[in-house]
């Protein structure tokens, strides 16, 4: 059962380190076009060949990883920073108008088709990586709010919460000191899942041209650019496609493995 965690973590780590390296160093400058050297097959100088503008595919994939991870990470961050407190408040005031207001607001956001709204947002405010982040991030908020509330509700009935109330602690303080640490594992697992969904969403937005704009590299954009040459130069589509699949697979495996590893009940039974 630890196998999925290890494989998932290794896959994710490969892409994260590629993205990290790309911040400091790339094998070739991806802003420089070399039309003469376009569509080279893999060689010693260009390990995975070059694309239709003569840009090195290794450099493009590395820079694309950076974009994907940055967008998904910030979007998950938005979800956690806004969603978790909302969920904790809803749980702390369970059954009151505040709980109702938060959760019905959640339902409202859930009711919208997220990718369509993301397209709308980027279409209205302009296509850019920042707007893509915002569009994806907004739809992460209700997810984390619901997970946080769901995890917090059963905890509120436990004796140690009652003991903390007898010790005079308020709801905010109990939520921060007692509830949050005990739902952290749920949030971490949900975080990895939302992270992988964020990468898919970013790829989708870039694919339709509403995500990161050139010269910024993006896996989705690479797919879109390769589309016309799919029969002549299939590797141009296959490489970014594989990158997306492996990264998402890695994150999902890691999420599954983390859930097993962090849940004490599963841990006891599983080993």
């Amino acid at each position, binding site marked *: 059962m630890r196998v999925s965690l290890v494989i998932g973590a290794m896959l994710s780590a490969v892409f994260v380190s590629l993205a990290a390296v790309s911040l400091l160093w790339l094998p070739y400058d991806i802003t420089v076009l070399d039309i003469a050297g376009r569509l080279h097959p893999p060689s010693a100088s260009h390990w995975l060949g070059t694309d239709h503008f003569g840009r090195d595919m290794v450099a493009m994939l590395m820079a694309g990883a950076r974009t994907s991870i940055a967008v998904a990470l910030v979007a998950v961050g938005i979800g956690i920073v806004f969603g978790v407190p909302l969920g904790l408040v809803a749980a702390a005031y369970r059954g009151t108008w505040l709980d109702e207001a938060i959760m019905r607001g959640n339902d409202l956001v859930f009711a919208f088709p997220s990718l369509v709204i993301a397209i709308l947002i980027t279409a209205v405010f302009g296509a850019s990586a920042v707007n893509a982040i915002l569009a994806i991030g907004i739809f992460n908020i209700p997810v984390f709010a619901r997970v946080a509330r769901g995890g917090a509700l059963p905890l509120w009935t*436990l004796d*140690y919460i*009652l*003991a903390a109330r007898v*010790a005079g602690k308020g709801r905010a303080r109990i939520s921060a000191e007692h509830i949050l640490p005990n739902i952290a594992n749920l949030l971490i697992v949900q975080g990895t899942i939302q992270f992988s969904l964020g990468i898919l969403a970013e790829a989708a937005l870039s694919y339709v041209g509403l995500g990161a704009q050139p010269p910024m590299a993006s896996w989705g954009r690479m797919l879109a650019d390769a589309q016309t040459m799919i029969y002549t130069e299939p590797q141009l589509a296959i490489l970014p496609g594989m990158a997306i699949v492996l990264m998402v697979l890695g994150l999902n495996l890691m999420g599954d493995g983390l859930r097993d590893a962090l849940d004490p009940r599963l841990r006891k039974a599983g080993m």
Partner: protein
Amino acid sequence: MSALAPCPSLLAIDGLSVAIQGTDLLREVSFDIAPGEVMGLVGESGSGKSLTALAIMGLLPDSSDMRGAVRLEGADLTVLPERALCEMRGRDIGMIFQEPMTALNPVHTIGAQVAETVRLHRRASRAEARAIARDRLDRVGLSHIGLDRYPHELSGGQRQRVCIALAIALRPKLLIADEPTTALDVTTQTQILDLLRDLVRDEGMALLLITHDLGVVAGMADRVAVMKSGQIVESDTTEALFRTMRHPYTRALLAASRPAARVAPSTVGAPVLEAHDVARHYGATRAVDGVSFTLHAGESLGLVGESGCGKSTLTRVLLGLEPADAGRVSLLGTPVGPEMPTAARAAQQVVFQDPYGSFNPRWRVADLVAEPFHLTGRPADAEAKVIAALEAVGLAAGDARKYPHAFSGGQRQRIAIARALITRPKVLILDEAVSALDVRVRAQVLDVLSDLQKRLGLSYVFISHDLSVVRAITDRVMVMQSGRIVEEGVTNEVFFNPQAAYTAALINAAPVIPEAWLDGHVGWSWA
């Protein structure tokens, strides 16, 4: 009483040993059960009682290593393949579990659940299965309950009856009951035990009754085996076992399960906690309905009642976590309520029932015990005070660095008491504080409590459903029923001469060991 030497035995367990991951959990357990016989298996938690039951049913985890033989009418169950075991379970051996709240599937009607068991083992049409289900539910005293009712519509006692109907649906030869009444109120317990006794007599079933309660086996079993650390330390006919008590462990169990009555009623001081006509309603339900009492300094006040009587609601009102809808509570003259000043709360603390749910599992003991300092402000010598509190309840200073999972149930209740004492309160509310503990551990915690009361002049409100404990630790007792106090008085007088019919019913329902069996063993007696 049935015959002593079991003739051709129904179930014969011979040298049963079970190890899980290298740990020996059962060692050479051997006993027989004759047809129609009631065998009591007694021991504390972790002694291997339930594991024995699971081994008989062939329900041990896959990782376990089992040796020895379990013979049902001569056939060794340990060598049977899983398919044959599935057929055997339910048909030849029925089982009842402790928790009636989780033993039934909440989304199926009770009729469907009983009928399903029938159809699983027998070719029976839907109508036949329903007819059998009706018959079995009538047999367990649920003739007024329809087959189409869902478990949540029934009380705990009724659910346990449904579980029994499930277990006896196919008229098995052996019924295993694992703590069948531990989760039930004392008056419900009597009814369920009566039902089991009738079933054994009328249907000719044998019963393996697993319990921690010596009083229950004394009233039920033909023979008793006492289990400790995976071994049977003593086994005999019930009366002979209680009369001789050869093994020191049996004697220790008995002594601990009958705590000595409180000797000298402590002198009472000024009033510390007062309730005047307190009421708390949830919609139309009057959870607490006009409760008044005064708790004096150094006094122990018992509050007895069955589940749903309003004890827990009253506790939360006394603690100022919920407002009183009518009446008032005052603590050392300060009105108690959700808005009371935090510093005033420090005079009153609480210990809860569940030693496992009482602590945030991610905090160290030092932080857990220091939490009530939130009320008073953290003093400069907080660490020293935490260590002093831990030592006062019999724990070591080094325990402060550990996490709660490193402690046993009894140790955790000591930590809970240390946490409650850290602000030097005058009043301690003990909400079923020893109910989840084994009898010997319970006796130790009760000793800690009475010692602390003497040294610190504490006042206790002791809430419990267990009359023997209330009797051992309280000066005065209140009996609560449906939100009202139906009787109040000096503990000994209430117990010897109960005025309210409900009090008398509670006292009579408590299972007892016949006095004549115990001559010369233990000093204290019921009446």
